[in-house]
């Protein structure tokens, strides 16, 4: 039953099974919420950019504030060279944010609580950043692993550590988001279960916890989207402006 706090992460097929070759690409609840997120993003930003009035209405203000927020975040962390990647980072931030926020509605599915989704995003960012780095600096990009001002004795060790930290970027990026979302939702479910099992007598304590946790989780949902986007910017900064 729903008492299992992990059952909220179950993926199930909606509609028939679709197979392309050996691959199962059936429409699932995960797909549904991906589509919901993207459609609501496109809807909001389409309405927000339609009319260009000097005094913006609420949706226009929302769209323009998000635009300037992300634009400022990119220029602060990655400089002006990162401008061509603005659209990607904007989409990334909005996608993660909306998926996280949709997960906060009861009985919904949280797309970003699945390691495979966050890992695909992180791996794409990792590969993209590495390719950009090699295109911009050639093999000079490998200097990223050799920090300046390190004594020669320590250099082999430092280089190994740098390479490991570089390679672990996609893992840390994806696990951070996935683990945060999963832990938060599991905790909320557990406290919700306590409310039911303790009933009218003892349920008030976990209920108040649940209320506080909901606020915290909304904060975490925003914060993790922000962290995801800003880490992408930092990686991009390494690839664009190589100065270690």
């Amino acid at each position, binding site marked *: 039953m729903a008492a299992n706090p992990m*059952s909220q992460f179950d993926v199930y097929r909606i509609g028939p099974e679709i197979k392309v070759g050996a691959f199962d690409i059936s429409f699932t609840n*995960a797909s549904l919420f991906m589509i919901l997120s993207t459609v609501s993003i496109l809807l909001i930003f389409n309405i927000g950019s339609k009319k260009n009035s000097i005094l913006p209405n609420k949706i*226009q203000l929302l769209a323009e504030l998000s635009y300037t927020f992300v634009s400022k975040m990119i220029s602060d962390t990655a400089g002006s060279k990162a401008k061509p990647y603005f659209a990607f980072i904007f*989409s990334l931030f909005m996608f993660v944010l909306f998926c996280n926020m949709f997960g906060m509605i009861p009985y919904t599915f949280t797309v970003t609580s699945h390691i495979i989704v966050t890992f695909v995003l992180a791996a794409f960012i990792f590969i993209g950043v590495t390719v950009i780095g090699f295109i911009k600096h050639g093999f000079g990009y490998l200097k990223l692993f050799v920090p300046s001002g390190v004594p020669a004795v320590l250099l082999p060790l430092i280089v190994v550590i740098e390479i490991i930290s570089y390679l672990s970027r996609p893992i840390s990026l994806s696990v951070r988001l996935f683990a945060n979302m999963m832990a938060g939702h599991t905790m909320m479910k557990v406290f919700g279960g306590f409310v039911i099992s303790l009933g009218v007598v003892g349920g008030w304590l976990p209920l108040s916890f649940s209320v506080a946790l909901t606020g915290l989780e909304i904060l975490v949902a925003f914060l993790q989207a922000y962290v995801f986007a800003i880490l992408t910017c930092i990686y991009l900064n390494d690839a664009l402006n190589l100065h270690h």
Partner: protein
Amino acid sequence: MVKKIYFQSIFFSFFFIKESFAAESGGMPQLNPEFWVSQIFWLILTFGIMYLVLSKLILPKISNNLESRKSQILENIEAAEKQREDSDAKLKEYDEIISKSKLEANSIFNQAREKALKDIGAKREVLDEQIDNEIAEAEKEIDALRKNAPDKINKIAIETSSELLQKLIGAEVNNSSISAIVDDLSKRNGDKYYGN
């Protein structure tokens, strides 16, 4: 007592929850690879479409809107600045005109005053001259009268005395002898009568 029962019930219920979780728990659904391909496929599809629409259609519009608003605001500020400068210049012009017209009015007033004074002076001179002339004429007349007066008086005195004598004496007295007497008298008493 009630408190104790309350906390005991909470404590025991934890056990029940744990048991029920343990019974149903089937590990993390995230690690079940059954739908991984499907999730990857739908992620790439939805994210790709969203990225394309955002980057090609929506974001340029938003940046356009922001730019146009910025430039319009700057334009408006510029226009306002210009209008302020214009109004400042006009105010200065107005002040200048007022001070100029004040000076002009002053000078006109002064001129008019001078002219009036001059006119008055000229008229006064003319009048003075006329008065002087009239006074001089009158004096002349008076002088003439004064000069003629003793002769006339003498004449009257001679005629009167000759008539008197004629009536008193009944005899014609020679006028010349009477006039000699009158002349003599008037020469002696003339100063007394005329005060000269």
